[in-house]
Protein backbone atom coordinates (compact mmCIF):
# COMPACT_ATOMS: atom_id res chain seq x y z
CA UNK A 1 0.00 0.00 0.00
CA UNK A 2 1.40 3.37 -0.96
CA UNK A 3 1.58 6.37 1.31
CA UNK A 4 -1.79 8.07 1.32
CA UNK A 5 -1.28 10.15 4.44
CA UNK A 6 -1.37 13.38 2.45
CA UNK A 7 -4.80 12.69 0.95
CA UNK A 8 -5.88 13.95 -2.46
CA UNK A 9 -3.63 16.39 -4.33
CA UNK A 10 -6.59 18.62 -5.19
CA UNK A 11 -9.16 20.63 -3.23
CA UNK A 12 -11.92 20.28 -5.84
CA UNK A 13 -12.87 17.48 -8.21
CA UNK A 14 -13.16 19.38 -11.48
CA UNK A 15 -11.91 16.74 -13.87
CA UNK A 16 -9.78 13.63 -14.14
CA UNK A 17 -7.15 15.88 -15.73
CA UNK A 18 -6.24 17.30 -12.29
CA UNK A 19 -5.83 13.90 -10.61
CA UNK A 20 -2.69 11.80 -10.57
CA UNK A 21 -2.55 8.01 -10.45
CA UNK A 22 -2.04 7.99 -6.69
CA UNK A 23 -5.22 10.08 -6.23
CA UNK A 24 -7.21 7.62 -8.32
CA UNK A 25 -5.87 4.60 -6.41
CA UNK A 26 -6.65 6.36 -3.11
CA UNK A 27 -10.23 6.97 -4.27
CA UNK A 28 -10.53 3.30 -5.30
CA UNK A 29 -9.21 1.96 -1.99
CA UNK A 30 -11.51 4.27 -0.05
CA UNK A 31 -14.42 3.18 -2.27
CA UNK A 32 -13.60 -0.46 -1.45
CA UNK A 33 -14.27 0.22 2.23
CA UNK A 34 -17.44 2.15 1.42
CA UNK A 35 -18.69 -0.69 -0.76
CA UNK A 36 -18.23 -2.88 2.29
CA UNK A 37 -20.24 -0.37 4.36
CA UNK A 38 -23.03 -0.44 1.74
CA UNK A 39 -23.40 -4.19 2.18
CA UNK A 40 -23.93 -3.97 5.94
CA UNK A 41 -27.34 -4.05 7.63
CA UNK A 42 -26.81 -0.41 8.67
CA UNK A 43 -25.49 1.30 5.55
CA UNK A 44 -24.60 4.60 7.12
CA UNK A 45 -21.54 6.19 8.70
CA UNK A 46 -21.46 9.51 10.56
CA UNK A 47 -18.30 10.99 8.94
CA UNK A 48 -19.83 14.03 7.20
CA UNK A 49 -22.38 14.92 9.86
CA UNK A 50 -21.19 18.54 10.05
CA UNK A 51 -20.92 19.04 6.27
CA UNK A 52 -23.62 20.61 4.12
CA UNK A 53 -23.66 19.86 0.41
CA UNK A 54 -25.73 21.51 -2.32
CA UNK A 55 -26.53 19.56 -5.47
CA UNK A 56 -26.87 22.20 -8.17
CA UNK A 57 -28.16 20.72 -11.42
CA UNK A 58 -28.58 22.94 -14.46
CA UNK A 59 -29.14 19.89 -16.64
CA UNK A 60 -31.34 16.81 -16.37
CA UNK A 61 -29.99 13.79 -14.55
CA UNK A 62 -31.33 10.63 -12.95
CA UNK A 63 -28.44 8.36 -12.00
CA UNK A 64 -25.82 10.97 -11.14
CA UNK A 65 -28.11 13.09 -8.97
CA UNK A 66 -29.65 10.13 -7.12
CA UNK A 67 -26.24 8.55 -6.71
CA UNK A 68 -24.69 11.73 -5.29
CA UNK A 69 -27.66 12.28 -3.02
CA UNK A 70 -27.56 8.73 -1.70
CA UNK A 71 -23.79 8.93 -1.19
CA UNK A 72 -24.26 12.13 0.82
CA UNK A 73 -27.00 10.58 2.94
CA UNK A 74 -24.94 7.44 3.60
CA UNK A 75 -22.19 9.73 4.91
CA UNK A 76 -24.70 11.63 7.09
CA UNK A 77 -24.16 14.96 5.29
CA UNK A 78 -26.97 17.52 5.11
CA UNK A 79 -28.07 18.05 1.53
CA UNK A 80 -30.07 20.55 -0.43
CA UNK A 81 -31.14 20.06 -4.02
CA UNK A 82 -31.46 22.65 -6.68
CA UNK A 83 -32.78 22.13 -10.19
CA UNK A 84 -32.42 25.04 -12.60
CA UNK A 85 -35.71 24.35 -14.34
CA UNK A 86 -37.71 25.19 -11.19
CA UNK A 87 -35.57 28.09 -9.95
CA UNK A 88 -34.89 31.80 -10.38
CA UNK A 89 -32.31 31.06 -13.09
CA UNK A 90 -35.19 31.36 -15.53
CA UNK A 91 -35.71 34.90 -14.16
CA UNK A 92 -32.21 35.88 -15.31
CA UNK A 93 -29.96 35.23 -12.30
CA UNK A 94 -26.29 34.55 -13.14
CA UNK A 95 -24.43 31.37 -12.17
CA UNK A 96 -22.19 33.13 -9.63
CA UNK A 97 -25.13 34.95 -8.02
CA UNK A 98 -27.11 31.73 -7.78
CA UNK A 99 -24.22 29.85 -6.18
CA UNK A 100 -23.24 32.68 -3.84
CA UNK A 101 -26.83 32.84 -2.62
CA UNK A 102 -26.69 29.13 -1.90
CA UNK A 103 -23.35 29.56 -0.12
CA UNK A 104 -24.78 32.37 2.01
CA UNK A 105 -26.88 29.67 3.64
CA UNK A 106 -23.61 28.14 4.94
CA UNK A 107 -22.96 25.37 2.46
CA UNK A 108 -19.53 23.68 2.40
CA UNK A 109 -19.57 21.88 -0.90
CA UNK A 110 -21.24 22.23 -4.29
CA UNK A 111 -21.94 19.35 -6.66
CA UNK A 112 -22.63 20.97 -10.01
CA UNK A 113 -23.86 19.82 -13.38
CA UNK A 114 -23.97 22.44 -16.09
CA UNK A 115 -24.42 22.42 -19.89
CA UNK A 116 -21.37 24.69 -20.40
CA UNK A 117 -17.86 23.18 -20.42
CA UNK A 118 -15.70 24.63 -17.64
CA UNK A 119 -18.60 25.75 -15.43
CA UNK A 120 -17.08 23.93 -12.45
CA UNK A 121 -13.60 25.36 -13.01
CA UNK A 122 -15.07 28.87 -13.35
CA UNK A 123 -16.99 28.48 -10.08
CA UNK A 124 -13.98 27.08 -8.21
CA UNK A 125 -12.11 30.33 -8.99
CA UNK A 126 -14.98 32.63 -8.03
CA UNK A 127 -16.64 31.17 -4.95
CA UNK A 128 -15.47 29.93 -1.58
CA UNK A 129 -16.58 26.31 -1.50
CA UNK A 130 -15.35 22.94 -2.63
CA UNK A 131 -16.64 22.08 -6.10
CA UNK A 132 -17.40 18.61 -7.42
CA UNK A 133 -18.03 18.47 -11.15
CA UNK A 134 -20.97 16.20 -11.95
CA UNK A 135 -20.70 16.84 -15.69
CA UNK A 136 -19.94 20.08 -17.55
CA UNK A 137 -21.19 20.10 -21.14
CA UNK A 138 -19.09 17.91 -23.42
CA UNK A 139 -15.99 18.43 -21.24
CA UNK A 140 -15.61 16.11 -18.23
CA UNK A 141 -17.65 13.82 -15.98
CA UNK A 142 -15.01 12.66 -13.49
CA UNK A 143 -17.08 10.53 -11.12
CA UNK A 144 -18.48 8.55 -14.06
CA UNK A 145 -14.97 7.79 -15.30
CA UNK A 146 -13.86 6.79 -11.80
CA UNK A 147 -16.78 4.41 -11.33
CA UNK A 148 -16.25 2.93 -14.81
CA UNK A 149 -12.57 2.24 -14.09
CA UNK A 150 -13.49 0.96 -10.60
CA UNK A 151 -15.97 -1.49 -12.17
CA UNK A 152 -13.31 -2.76 -14.61
CA UNK A 153 -10.86 -3.14 -11.72
CA UNK A 154 -13.50 -5.07 -9.79
CA UNK A 155 -14.05 -7.55 -12.66
CA UNK A 156 -10.44 -7.95 -13.85
CA UNK A 157 -8.49 -7.15 -10.67
CA UNK A 158 -6.55 -4.38 -12.39
CA UNK A 159 -7.07 -1.76 -15.09
CA UNK A 160 -3.44 -1.62 -16.24
CA UNK A 161 -2.81 -3.42 -19.52
CA UNK A 162 -6.51 -3.81 -20.35
CA UNK A 163 -7.91 -2.74 -23.70
CA UNK A 164 -11.02 -0.59 -23.57
CA UNK A 165 -13.01 0.53 -26.61
CA UNK A 166 -15.31 3.53 -26.22
CA UNK A 167 -17.95 3.27 -28.92
CA UNK A 168 -20.51 5.79 -30.14
CA UNK A 169 -20.92 9.55 -29.96
CA UNK A 170 -17.42 10.58 -28.86
CA UNK A 171 -17.80 14.16 -30.08
CA UNK A 172 -20.56 15.16 -27.66
CA UNK A 173 -19.54 12.92 -24.78
CA UNK A 174 -18.01 14.13 -21.52
CA UNK A 175 -17.91 10.50 -20.39
CA UNK A 176 -15.53 9.71 -23.27
CA UNK A 177 -12.95 12.38 -22.39
CA UNK A 178 -12.95 11.61 -18.66
CA UNK A 179 -12.77 7.88 -19.37
CA UNK A 180 -9.84 8.27 -21.77
CA UNK A 181 -7.86 10.34 -19.24
CA UNK A 182 -8.68 8.08 -16.29
CA UNK A 183 -7.97 4.78 -18.06
CA UNK A 184 -4.70 6.07 -19.50
CA UNK A 185 -3.53 7.27 -16.09
CA UNK A 186 -4.16 3.76 -14.80
CA UNK A 187 -2.15 2.21 -17.63
CA UNK A 188 -4.92 0.90 -19.90
CA UNK A 189 -5.03 1.10 -23.70
CA UNK A 190 -7.96 3.06 -25.11
CA UNK A 191 -9.62 3.01 -28.51
CA UNK A 192 -12.49 5.18 -29.71
CA UNK A 193 -14.89 3.94 -32.36
CA UNK A 194 -17.80 5.61 -34.13
CA UNK A 195 -18.85 7.28 -37.37
CA UNK A 196 -16.22 9.70 -38.70
CA UNK A 197 -18.53 12.65 -38.05
CA UNK A 198 -18.79 11.81 -34.34
CA UNK A 199 -15.04 11.37 -33.72
CA UNK A 200 -13.27 14.67 -32.89
CA UNK A 201 -10.62 15.48 -35.48
CA UNK A 202 -7.66 15.75 -33.09
CA UNK A 203 -8.59 12.92 -30.70
CA UNK A 204 -5.40 11.10 -31.78
CA UNK A 205 -3.39 13.71 -29.85
CA UNK A 206 -4.72 12.15 -26.62
CA UNK A 207 -2.86 8.99 -27.54
CA UNK A 208 -5.91 6.86 -28.30
CA UNK A 209 -6.42 4.49 -31.20
CA UNK A 210 -9.18 5.41 -33.66
CA UNK A 211 -11.27 2.78 -35.42
CA UNK A 212 -14.30 3.24 -37.66
CA UNK A 213 -15.24 -0.46 -37.92
CA UNK A 214 -17.27 -1.75 -34.98
CA UNK A 215 -16.31 -5.41 -35.48
CA UNK A 216 -12.58 -4.62 -35.54
CA UNK A 217 -12.91 -2.56 -32.36
CA UNK A 218 -14.79 -5.35 -30.57
CA UNK A 219 -12.22 -7.94 -31.65
CA UNK A 220 -9.45 -5.76 -30.23
CA UNK A 221 -10.92 -4.86 -26.84
CA UNK A 222 -11.48 -6.53 -23.44
CA UNK A 223 -14.18 -4.03 -22.48
CA UNK A 224 -16.65 -2.18 -24.71
CA UNK A 225 -18.08 1.02 -23.26
CA UNK A 226 -21.17 1.87 -25.35
CA UNK A 227 -22.18 5.54 -25.41
CA UNK A 228 -25.55 7.04 -26.16
CA UNK A 229 -26.17 9.20 -29.21
CA UNK A 230 -26.65 12.64 -27.63
CA UNK A 231 -29.36 13.97 -29.92
CA UNK A 232 -30.02 16.91 -27.57
CA UNK A 233 -26.48 18.24 -28.20
CA UNK A 234 -26.50 17.69 -31.95
CA UNK A 235 -27.39 20.89 -33.76
CA UNK A 236 -26.84 19.44 -37.23
CA UNK A 237 -27.29 15.96 -38.68
CA UNK A 238 -24.15 13.88 -38.15
CA UNK A 239 -25.50 10.70 -39.79
CA UNK A 240 -28.40 9.95 -42.15
CA UNK A 241 -30.72 8.20 -39.71
CA UNK A 242 -30.77 6.43 -36.33
CA UNK A 243 -31.67 3.23 -38.16
CA UNK A 244 -28.52 3.46 -40.25
CA UNK A 245 -26.43 4.24 -37.15
CA UNK A 246 -27.83 1.15 -35.45
CA UNK A 247 -26.99 -1.01 -38.47
CA UNK A 248 -23.37 0.20 -38.47
CA UNK A 249 -22.59 0.75 -34.78
CA UNK A 250 -25.37 -0.91 -32.77
CA UNK A 251 -24.23 -3.81 -30.56
CA UNK A 252 -26.41 -6.89 -30.83
CA UNK A 253 -26.25 -10.53 -29.78
CA UNK A 254 -25.13 -11.82 -33.22
CA UNK A 255 -22.06 -9.56 -33.28
CA UNK A 256 -21.23 -10.40 -29.67
CA UNK A 257 -21.53 -14.16 -30.29
CA UNK A 258 -19.36 -13.94 -33.42
CA UNK A 259 -16.36 -12.79 -31.33
CA UNK A 260 -13.91 -15.48 -30.25
CA UNK A 261 -13.73 -14.12 -26.67
CA UNK A 262 -16.03 -12.81 -23.95
CA UNK A 263 -15.84 -9.06 -23.51
CA UNK A 264 -17.40 -6.91 -20.79
CA UNK A 265 -20.17 -4.55 -21.86
CA UNK A 266 -20.52 -1.20 -20.13
CA UNK A 267 -22.86 1.74 -20.62
CA UNK A 268 -22.96 4.97 -18.60
CA UNK A 269 -26.73 5.30 -19.12
CA UNK A 270 -29.31 6.35 -20.03
CA UNK A 271 -29.63 3.48 -22.49
CA UNK A 272 -31.47 3.93 -25.76
CA UNK A 273 -32.48 0.31 -26.17
CA UNK A 274 -32.40 -0.79 -29.77
CA UNK A 275 -30.15 2.09 -30.86
CA UNK A 276 -26.57 1.71 -29.57
CA UNK A 277 -27.27 -1.55 -27.75
CA UNK A 278 -30.03 -4.18 -28.00
CA UNK A 279 -31.99 -5.35 -24.95
CA UNK A 280 -30.60 -8.89 -24.99
CA UNK A 281 -27.03 -7.53 -24.84
CA UNK A 282 -27.83 -4.91 -22.19
CA UNK A 283 -29.41 -7.58 -19.98
CA UNK A 284 -26.85 -10.32 -20.70
CA UNK A 285 -24.41 -11.65 -18.13
CA UNK A 286 -21.52 -9.95 -19.92
CA UNK A 287 -23.12 -6.59 -19.18
CA UNK A 288 -21.99 -4.85 -15.99
CA UNK A 289 -24.28 -1.84 -16.45
CA UNK A 290 -26.03 -2.27 -13.10
CA UNK A 291 -22.72 -2.97 -11.30
CA UNK A 292 -21.60 0.43 -12.59
CA UNK A 293 -24.62 2.07 -10.96
CA UNK A 294 -23.99 0.23 -7.68
CA UNK A 295 -20.31 1.21 -7.67
CA UNK A 296 -21.30 4.80 -8.42
CA UNK A 297 -22.53 5.32 -4.86
CA UNK A 298 -19.33 3.93 -3.31
CA UNK A 299 -17.11 6.00 -5.62
CA UNK A 300 -19.04 9.20 -4.88
CA UNK A 301 -18.89 8.48 -1.14
CA UNK A 302 -15.11 8.11 -1.47
CA UNK A 303 -14.76 11.37 -3.42
CA UNK A 304 -16.95 13.35 -0.99
CA UNK A 305 -15.24 11.80 2.03
CA UNK A 306 -11.72 12.53 0.79
CA UNK A 307 -12.54 16.10 -0.26
CA UNK A 308 -14.51 16.93 2.88
CA UNK A 309 -11.78 15.42 5.05
CA UNK A 310 -9.43 18.24 4.11
CA UNK A 311 -9.26 20.80 6.87
CA UNK A 312 -11.48 23.77 5.97
Amino acid at each position, binding site marked *: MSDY*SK*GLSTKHLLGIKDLNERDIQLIF*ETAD*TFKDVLNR*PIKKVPSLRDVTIANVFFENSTRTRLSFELAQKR*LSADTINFAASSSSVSKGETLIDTVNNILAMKVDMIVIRHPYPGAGIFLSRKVNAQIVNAGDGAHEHPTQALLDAFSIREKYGDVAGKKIAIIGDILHSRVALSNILCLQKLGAEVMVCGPTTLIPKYIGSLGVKVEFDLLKALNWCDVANMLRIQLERQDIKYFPSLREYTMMYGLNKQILDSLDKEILIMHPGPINRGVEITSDVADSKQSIILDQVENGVAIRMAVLY*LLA*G*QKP
Partner: protein
Amino acid sequence: MQNLTLLDGQKFQITIMRLCHQLIENHDDFSNSVILGIQPRGIYLANRIAYELQQILPDAKILNGNLDITFFRDDFRRRESPLVPNTTKIDFIIEGKKVILVDDVLWTGRTIRSAMDAMLAFGRPQKVELLVLVDRRFSRHLPIEPDYIGIQVDSINSQKVLVSWKETDQEDKVILLSEKD
Protein backbone atom coordinates in the same frame (compact mmCIF):
# COMPACT_ATOMS: atom_id res chain seq x y z
CA MET B 1 13.75 10.83 21.92
CA GLN B 2 14.39 8.66 24.97
CA ASN B 3 13.11 5.09 25.05
CA LEU B 4 12.10 3.21 28.15
CA THR B 5 11.12 -0.44 27.75
CA LEU B 6 8.10 -1.21 29.87
CA LEU B 7 7.49 -4.80 28.88
CA ASP B 8 9.33 -7.37 26.77
CA GLY B 9 10.52 -10.97 26.53
CA GLN B 10 9.05 -13.44 28.97
CA LYS B 11 7.17 -10.80 30.95
CA PHE B 12 5.32 -9.81 27.77
CA GLN B 13 4.29 -13.41 27.16
CA ILE B 14 3.21 -13.89 30.80
CA THR B 15 1.04 -10.78 30.54
CA ILE B 16 -0.66 -12.09 27.39
CA MET B 17 -1.27 -15.47 29.04
CA ARG B 18 -2.71 -13.81 32.16
CA LEU B 19 -5.15 -11.82 29.98
CA CYS B 20 -6.20 -15.07 28.25
CA HIS B 21 -6.91 -16.80 31.56
CA GLN B 22 -8.84 -13.81 32.85
CA LEU B 23 -10.96 -13.98 29.69
CA ILE B 24 -11.62 -17.69 30.16
CA GLU B 25 -12.82 -17.03 33.74
CA ASN B 26 -15.61 -14.84 32.35
CA HIS B 27 -16.29 -16.43 28.99
CA ASP B 28 -15.95 -20.22 29.59
CA ASP B 29 -15.64 -21.87 26.17
CA PHE B 30 -16.31 -18.70 24.14
CA SER B 31 -19.46 -20.19 22.60
CA ASN B 32 -21.29 -16.92 23.17
CA SER B 33 -18.36 -14.51 22.93
CA VAL B 34 -16.49 -12.80 20.12
CA ILE B 35 -13.24 -10.83 19.94
CA LEU B 36 -13.02 -7.59 17.94
CA GLY B 37 -9.57 -6.09 17.36
CA ILE B 38 -9.61 -2.37 16.65
CA GLN B 39 -7.77 -1.25 13.49
CA PRO B 40 -4.99 -0.52 12.90
CA ARG B 41 -2.88 -1.65 15.90
CA GLY B 42 -5.38 -3.53 18.07
CA ILE B 43 -5.71 -6.40 15.61
CA TYR B 44 -2.23 -7.76 16.46
CA LEU B 45 -3.16 -8.11 20.13
CA ALA B 46 -6.54 -9.60 19.18
CA ASN B 47 -4.86 -12.12 16.87
CA ARG B 48 -2.33 -13.10 19.56
CA ILE B 49 -5.03 -13.47 22.21
CA ALA B 50 -7.20 -15.52 19.83
CA TYR B 51 -4.22 -17.73 18.96
CA GLU B 52 -3.28 -18.37 22.60
CA LEU B 53 -6.91 -19.02 23.59
CA GLN B 54 -7.13 -21.59 20.80
CA GLN B 55 -4.01 -23.33 22.20
CA ILE B 56 -5.52 -23.41 25.71
CA LEU B 57 -9.01 -24.43 24.50
CA PRO B 58 -8.41 -26.67 21.45
CA ASP B 59 -12.11 -27.55 21.11
CA ALA B 60 -13.43 -23.99 21.33
CA LYS B 61 -14.33 -21.92 18.30
CA ILE B 62 -12.73 -18.52 18.87
CA LEU B 63 -14.36 -15.84 16.70
CA ASN B 64 -12.00 -12.97 15.96
CA GLY B 65 -12.75 -9.95 13.75
CA ASN B 66 -11.21 -6.61 12.75
CA LEU B 67 -13.13 -3.40 13.36
CA ASP B 68 -12.25 -0.19 11.54
CA ILE B 69 -13.37 2.99 13.26
CA THR B 70 -12.20 5.63 10.75
CA PHE B 71 -15.65 6.82 9.70
CA PHE B 72 -16.83 7.09 13.30
CA ARG B 73 -14.01 9.22 14.69
CA ASP B 74 -14.78 12.62 16.18
CA ASP B 75 -11.75 14.46 14.74
CA PHE B 76 -12.80 14.36 11.06
CA ARG B 77 -12.14 17.76 9.43
CA ARG B 78 -10.13 18.77 12.49
CA ARG B 79 -6.84 17.23 11.38
CA GLU B 80 -4.23 18.42 8.91
CA SER B 81 -4.22 15.15 6.97
CA PRO B 82 -7.34 13.20 6.06
CA LEU B 83 -8.01 9.85 7.70
CA VAL B 84 -7.44 6.81 5.52
CA PRO B 85 -9.66 3.86 6.35
CA ASN B 86 -8.61 0.25 7.02
CA THR B 87 -10.67 -2.84 6.38
CA THR B 88 -13.39 -4.12 8.66
CA LYS B 89 -13.60 -7.90 8.67
CA ILE B 90 -16.38 -9.34 10.78
CA ASP B 91 -17.69 -12.57 9.27
CA PHE B 92 -19.94 -13.53 12.17
CA ILE B 93 -22.99 -12.10 13.90
CA ILE B 94 -22.51 -10.04 17.05
CA GLU B 95 -26.24 -9.72 17.83
CA GLY B 96 -26.80 -11.08 21.35
CA LYS B 97 -23.11 -12.00 21.84
CA LYS B 98 -20.63 -10.86 24.45
CA VAL B 99 -18.15 -8.68 22.57
CA ILE B 100 -14.58 -8.16 23.78
CA LEU B 101 -13.12 -5.03 22.19
CA VAL B 102 -9.33 -5.27 21.98
CA ASP B 103 -6.84 -2.45 21.53
CA ASP B 104 -3.15 -2.14 22.30
CA VAL B 105 -3.09 1.19 24.14
CA LEU B 106 -5.92 2.99 25.97
CA TRP B 107 -5.28 6.69 26.33
CA THR B 108 -8.06 9.27 25.95
CA GLY B 109 -10.83 6.73 25.35
CA ARG B 110 -11.96 8.43 22.14
CA THR B 111 -11.02 5.45 19.97
CA ILE B 112 -13.11 3.18 22.14
CA ARG B 113 -16.08 5.57 21.91
CA SER B 114 -15.78 5.45 18.11
CA ALA B 115 -15.41 1.67 18.21
CA MET B 116 -18.64 1.28 20.14
CA ASP B 117 -20.44 3.36 17.52
CA ALA B 118 -18.86 1.42 14.66
CA MET B 119 -19.70 -1.91 16.30
CA LEU B 120 -23.39 -1.09 16.65
CA ALA B 121 -23.72 -1.13 12.83
CA PHE B 122 -23.30 -4.91 13.10
CA GLY B 123 -26.01 -5.58 15.67
CA ARG B 124 -26.86 -5.24 19.35
CA PRO B 125 -24.43 -7.19 21.55
CA GLN B 126 -25.54 -8.62 24.88
CA LYS B 127 -22.52 -7.10 26.60
CA VAL B 128 -19.38 -5.25 25.62
CA GLU B 129 -16.05 -5.52 27.43
CA LEU B 130 -12.73 -3.82 26.83
CA LEU B 131 -9.30 -5.42 26.90
CA VAL B 132 -6.11 -3.37 26.52
CA LEU B 133 -2.44 -4.25 26.81
CA VAL B 134 -1.41 -0.82 28.12
CA ASP B 135 -3.61 1.49 30.17
CA ARG B 136 -2.25 5.05 30.32
CA ARG B 137 -3.85 6.00 33.61
CA PHE B 138 -5.39 9.37 34.52
CA SER B 139 -5.48 10.62 30.91
CA ARG B 140 -9.06 9.86 29.90
CA HIS B 141 -11.25 12.41 28.08
CA LEU B 142 -14.30 10.18 28.37
CA PRO B 143 -15.77 7.99 31.10
CA ILE B 144 -14.35 4.74 29.69
CA GLU B 145 -12.45 2.13 31.71
CA PRO B 146 -11.02 -1.25 30.63
CA ASP B 147 -12.18 -4.61 32.02
CA TYR B 148 -8.86 -6.35 31.39
CA ILE B 149 -5.50 -4.60 31.64
CA GLY B 150 -2.03 -5.85 30.69
CA ILE B 151 -0.04 -3.12 32.42
CA GLN B 152 -0.84 0.32 33.77
CA VAL B 153 1.42 3.23 32.94
CA ASP B 154 1.67 6.74 34.32
CA SER B 155 2.65 9.05 31.49
CA ILE B 156 2.37 12.66 30.40
CA ASN B 157 0.77 13.96 27.21
CA SER B 158 4.01 14.56 25.30
CA GLN B 159 5.08 10.93 25.79
CA LYS B 160 4.09 8.12 23.47
CA VAL B 161 3.47 4.47 24.19
CA LEU B 162 4.35 2.07 21.37
CA VAL B 163 3.61 -1.63 21.21
CA SER B 164 5.64 -3.65 18.70
CA TRP B 165 4.84 -7.21 17.67
CA LYS B 166 6.91 -10.22 16.66
CA GLU B 167 4.75 -10.67 13.54
CA THR B 168 5.41 -7.21 12.10
CA ASP B 169 8.24 -5.57 14.06
CA GLN B 170 10.48 -8.58 14.94
CA GLU B 171 10.02 -8.19 18.69
CA ASP B 172 7.27 -8.24 21.33
CA LYS B 173 7.81 -5.03 23.26
CA VAL B 174 6.10 -2.08 24.94
CA ILE B 175 8.14 1.11 24.97
CA LEU B 176 7.58 4.58 26.36
CA LEU B 177 8.96 7.37 24.16
CA SER B 178 9.78 10.73 25.75
CA GLU B 179 10.95 13.95 24.14
CA LYS B 180 14.53 14.67 25.23
CA ASP B 181 14.79 18.09 26.83
